């Protein structure tokens, strides 16, 4: 029996960098990093050379200059005397508005369609299949243009609302659908409206408190308390009482058509057709993808769960809401995040219908009028990157909260 001799200890030789598996990985990584840095350096140098050849500098000062153009939907006060930076901000808010509206609506549509697609009702199930396949397999741009065309071709011009015997009339005397957009009434805050707001906030707090109390009570005693009706009452009754006592501090500004000059609606708020078209198309398109994610999530929950819930006497609706969906959420949420990101980035298709999103203001008119392509595109990219990171950050926190707690 011999004892294996210790291998002779030698100093480090350069050939070990390639031949010794302890160092080879490191060598390859160093080389790859050097190549990557060289590529980046080449690109940056190329950019600098080309910018110099074009006689252009790199400067964000143009953002402070007067924009000079008008934007048809501004959530913050904006005139053509404002700066390019403010025009970009108007565009950013418009992007965020349609992204938020789209995400909420797509989620509702997607969850409903996903659940209904699994319905035992043949007709309902097939209808949802048709919806999902139609929207998933036709490009989003076509849907946006189609919805926009339907909205603007099938609705009357404002002039049709004029006169005693107008051809068109407002829905409930309040809402006017026109080929320019939908004019909706808007509340005007009068004297005492602040009190009303405080009452509303208190009501919401009370309603949340009631729900917490009801749940604790049910957990403790097993007896459920009425939640829905009491919540509604808490929300509505004090509001109504204060509203009447204060003598209607909030009035509605109802859109009315101007009878002289060029026909247009005054008062209320104009929800542009381009916004509605973008909203509906984004929601239905992304909703179709979410429906498939929801369906996959539900199918991932073992059938035994449903049977166990039925055995306990839960009705199908409650089984879905209380047993299946909470477990399915663990499968649903991660892919859902990327759908939200897709939807947010797809809002840049707004250009097709002339919606003034950030790509149309900063990345469109501003870029074109100032000739600052590189700066504008960098800012645009940075904006979408930040928004996407925020969305995925928030949803990842939510995902961790609903994830299976393994102890």
């Amino acid at each position, binding site marked *: 029996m011999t004892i294996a001799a210790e291998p002779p200890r030698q100093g480090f030789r350069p050939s070990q960098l390639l031949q010794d598996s302890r160092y080879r990985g490191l060598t390859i990584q160093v080389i790859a990093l050097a190549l990557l840095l060289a*590529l980046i350096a*080449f*690109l940056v140098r*190329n*950019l600098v050379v*080309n*910018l110099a*050849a*074009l*006689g*252009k500098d790199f400067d964000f000062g143009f953002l402070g200059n007067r924009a*000079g*153009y*008008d*934007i*048809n939907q501004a959530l913050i006060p904006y005139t*053509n*005397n404002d700066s390019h930076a403010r025009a970009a901000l108007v565009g950013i808010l418009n992007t965020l508005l349609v992204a938020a509206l789209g995400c909420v609506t797509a989620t509702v549509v997607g969850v409903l369609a996903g659940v209904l697609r699994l319905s035992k009702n043949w007709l309902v199930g097939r209808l949802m299949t048709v919806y999902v396949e139609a929207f998933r397999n036709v490009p989003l741009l076509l849907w946006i243009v189609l919805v926009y065309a339907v909205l*603007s*071709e099938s609705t009357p*011009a404002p002039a049709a609302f004029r006169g005693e015997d107008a051809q068109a009339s407002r829905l409930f005397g309040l809402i006017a659908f026109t*080929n*320019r957009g939908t004019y909706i009434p808007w509340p005007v805050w009068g004297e005492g409206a602040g009190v009303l707001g405080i009452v509303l906030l208190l009501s919401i707090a009370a309603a949340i408190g009631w729900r917490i109390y009801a749940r604790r009570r049910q957990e403790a005693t097993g007896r459920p308390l009425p939640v829905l009706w009491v919540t509604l009452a808490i929300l509505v009754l004090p509001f109504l009482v204060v509203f009447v006592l204060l003598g209607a501090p909030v009035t509605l500004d109802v859109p009315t058509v*101007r009878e002289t*000059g*060029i026909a*247009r609606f005054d008062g209320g708020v104009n929800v542009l*057709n381009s916004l509605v078209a973008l909203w509906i198309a984004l929601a239905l398109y992304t909703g179709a993808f979410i429906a498939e994610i929801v369906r996959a999530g539900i199918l991932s929950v073992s059938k035994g769960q449903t049977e166990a819930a039925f055995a306990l006497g839960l009705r199908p609706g409650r089984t879905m809401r209380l047993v299946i969906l909470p477990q399915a959420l663990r499968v649903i949420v991660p892919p859902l995040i990327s759908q939200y990101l897709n939807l947010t980035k797809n809002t840049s298709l707004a*250009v097709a219908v*002339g919606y*003034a999103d950030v790509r*149309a203001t900063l990345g*469109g*008119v501003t*870029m*074109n*009028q*100032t*000739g600052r*392509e*590189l700066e504008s*595109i960098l800012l645009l990219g940075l904006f979408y990157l930040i928004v996407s990171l925020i969305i995925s950050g928030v949803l990842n926190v939510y995902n961790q909260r609903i994830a299976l707690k393994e102890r």
Partner: protein
Amino acid sequence: MKRSVVLGTLALAGLAGAAQAATLDDVKARDALNCGVNPGLTGFAAPNAEGVWEGFDVDVCRAVAAAVLGDATKVNYVPLSGETRFTALAAGEVDLLARNSTWTFSRDTDLNLDFAGVNYYDGQGFLVPSALGVTSATELDGATVCIQTGTTTELNLADFFRVNNISYTPVPIANDAEGRQQYLAGACDTYTTDASGLASVRTTFENPEEHVILPEIISKEPLGPAVRHGDNDWADIARWTLNALIVAEELGVTSANVAEMAAAPTENPEINRLLGTEGEMGAMIGLDNQWAVRAIEATGNYGEIFERHLGESTPIGLARGLNAQWTNGGLLYAPPFR
């Protein structure tokens, strides 16, 4: 492979790594002129029934191609929207931009373009349906206005309504075809762009007589072909090709008689210098002596081009107006060929 990847990356950054100097050499090596044109504006640039591009701006491209390459058909037409046109020129996608582009201070300086001259003196007008009952642009208070984005007209519009203290709602559109569709669908009360463009769009309506162009012209819009700043030799070629077409009309040289006049020296030395039968004008701009002859043969002189595409014999029916020769009370005034 690697090179194309790198170029693609740069193009994404909005800057293709195209060679800057010596556009002339690039065009000759490619044996084709890349010309940026309007995607569709009858009379200025639009494909005809056979798919061949024709129009007032297209003839500028054809004249330059004839002068440089000897063949007016060696042009790749690149349809560009109002928003993308200058980026496409700066990135080297096109060598020449003949797309109803207004010559302004900031475009000439800050956007690094060079305008080769003016081939159409225009101004911004408003097109309205007669049924709207408006006879002046100052009555447009509260109007919804279709407006092409990325244009000078967009800025003029904002200024005009601000100065007159009246309100409007803009409906941004990308090109004339979309503007036509939106306007006819009633999505806007009025469509505004250069008056020549309005006249052109109106000819494509089913009932052109039901629409009027309001009398106010709210801006100066000198439209001209543009090239990249920095390649002065190429800019000279574009500038003097345009001037050759203009001066040919002034001197009575037409596509019909140019071959005859170029065959032997005439009595008029300026015609001789233009047509290369005297002096070495061609060599001074890096071309041969027959360059102007070929350009005029291919498209005719400025007057012929105007009459063929926009003149009173066409459906567009524009009068020469400001675009007449200076000898006829217009603004066309080509510097002397000397």
